[in-house]
C-alpha cells in the first residue's frame, strides 16, 4: 500500500455508531450546501434574488 493509499484508507469495520452518525450528517450537510449553491446560482433565479438588494435602501 502506498503512503497516499495508507493515509486515506479507512477501517470501515472499526467505525462506531458515533463515527457513522458524524459521517452521515456531514455528507447530508455537504449535499445540502451543494443544493443551496445550485438554488442560488440558477440563472432563472437571478432576477428574483438580485431585486432583494434594493429593498434595504429605503427601509427607514
Amino acid at each position: 500500500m502506498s503512503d497516499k493509499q495508507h493515509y486515506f484508507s479507512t477501517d470501515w469495520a472499526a467505525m462506531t455508531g458515533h463515527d457513522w452518525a458524524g459521517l452521515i450528517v456531514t455528507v447530508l450537510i455537504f449535499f445540502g450546501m451543494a443544493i443551496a449553491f445550485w438554488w442560488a446560482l440558477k440563472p432563472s433565479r437571478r432576477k428574483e434574488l438580485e431585486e432583494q438588494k434594493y429593498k434595504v435602501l429605503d427601509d427607514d
Partner: protein
Amino acid sequence: MDTTMTKPQYDDGVVKYLTVLAVVFLVLGTAMGTMAASQLAWPALNFDIAEITFARLRVMHTNTVIFAFGGMTLMATAFYTVQRTNGLKLYSNGLAWTTAILFTIGLLLGVISLSMGMTQGKEYHELIWPLDIAVALVWVMFTFNFVMTIANRNKQTHSHVYVSNWFFLGMMIMITYLYVVNGLAIPVSMFESYSIFSGVQDAMIQWWWGHNAVGFFLTAGFLAIMYYFVPKQAQRPVYSYRLSVIHFWALMFGYVWLGAHHLQYTALPDWTGSLGAAISLAMIIPSWGGALNGMLTLSGAWDRLRTDYILRFLVMALAFYAMATFEGPVMSAKTVNALSHYTDWTIGHVHSGALGWVAMVSIGAIYHMVMKLWNTEMYSMKLINFHFWLATIGTVLYIVAMWVSGIMQGLMWRAYDEYGMLAYTFAESVSAMHPYYVMRTIGGVLFTSGAVVMLYNIVMTLRMAKARQTSAVTAQA
C-alpha cells in the same frame, strides 16, 4: 400622501441604550487591553494588586471587548436591522429591555468575578457556572425575540427575509449550541465546577467552541452588520445578492470544522489537524467572496471615501477582514503553525481581526445608527476622521509589532547551536520582545484614544440633539 401612516414606528429605545453602552464598553475594554499590554512591557505596572495582574486583567479585557462591546453591538444592530428589514416593531419591546438589562448586569458581574480570580479556566468561556447559565438564558431570550420578530412580519409586503437576518440567525443558533455544549459541567460548589469533558476531548471541544466563537460570534454576526450598513451608508445596493447567499451557506458549512487547527502537534489524532487546516484554507474562498461583495458595493462611488468618514471605517474593516481571513488559514497549515503557534504572531492575527475587522465595522455601524436614531448630524465629522486615523494607525502598529515579535520568538525558540543545544534561553527571547511590547502598547494607546474620542463625539451629539429638541418644543409653546 401621508407617509407617516406607511412608516412603522420602531422600538428604538432599547437600541439607543445598547448603542451607547457598547461605546462605553469599547473604551473600558480597550483601556484594560492597553493596561495589560503595558504590564507585559513594564511588569511593575501590576502594582502587586491581585485584581489587576496580567493573568486576571487579560481575561477581563477579552470578556469586556468580545462579550460586552461585541455583544452589545450585535444586540443593538440586530434589534435595529430586524425591525427595518422586516417593516415592523420588535416582537416584544419588554423582552428586549429585559434582555439588555440582564445582559448588562451579567457582564458587570462577570468582569467583577474575573477580577476576583473566579474562573472556569476555559478560554473565552471563563465565567463561573451560575453566570454561565445566566448568559446562556439571556442569549436565548435575545434569539427568541429576534426569531419571533421575523416570524410576525407581513409576509405579503416582506415575503423575503433580507440576508443580514440570515447571518444574525446563523450566529444566534450556532452560538447557543456551541456555548452550551462547551459549558457542560458538574457544579461542586456555588462558584466552582468541573467540565464533563477531560483530556484530549476537553481540548477538542474547547477549541471547537473557541474557533467558532470567532467564526459565528465575531464573523457571522459582524457580517450581518456589514450586509446592512455598507449598502445603507454607501446608498448603493450590495454588489451581488446571490454572492451573499453563497457566502452565508459556505460560512455556515465550513466554520465548524476549523477548531482542530488550534491543536496541531498535540495529542489529537493527526488527521483532525490536517482536516482543520484543509478546510481553513478552503474558507479563504467564501471569506474573500464576502469581502469583495462588500467592497465592490462601492463600484462607481469610490470617491465617497474622500468625504464619508463613516464609510471609511466600514471599508477599512473589509480590508482587514480580507487580510485576517487569508492570514488565519496560512497560520493553520502545519508547516507555518510549527513556527507561529504559541508566539505573539497569533496575538497579532487575532487583533487584526478584532481591531481591524470587528471593532471598525462596529464603529462604522454605531456612527450610522447614532445619526439615524437621534435624527441628527454628528457633533463633529472631523472628530470621526481623527478617530479613523487613530484606529487605523493604532491597529497597524499593534499587528506589525506582533508579527515581528512573533516570528522572532518562533525563530529563537527553534534555533540550535552546532552542538544541538538550544541557541537561546526562554528569558533571552522574552528580553528580545521588549521593544515590540512597547510598540504594541503605543498601538493600544492610539486605538483606545480613538474610542475615547468616539465616546466624546457621541455624548456631545446626544446633548446637541436634546438641546435642539428642547428649543423646538419651546418655540412651539
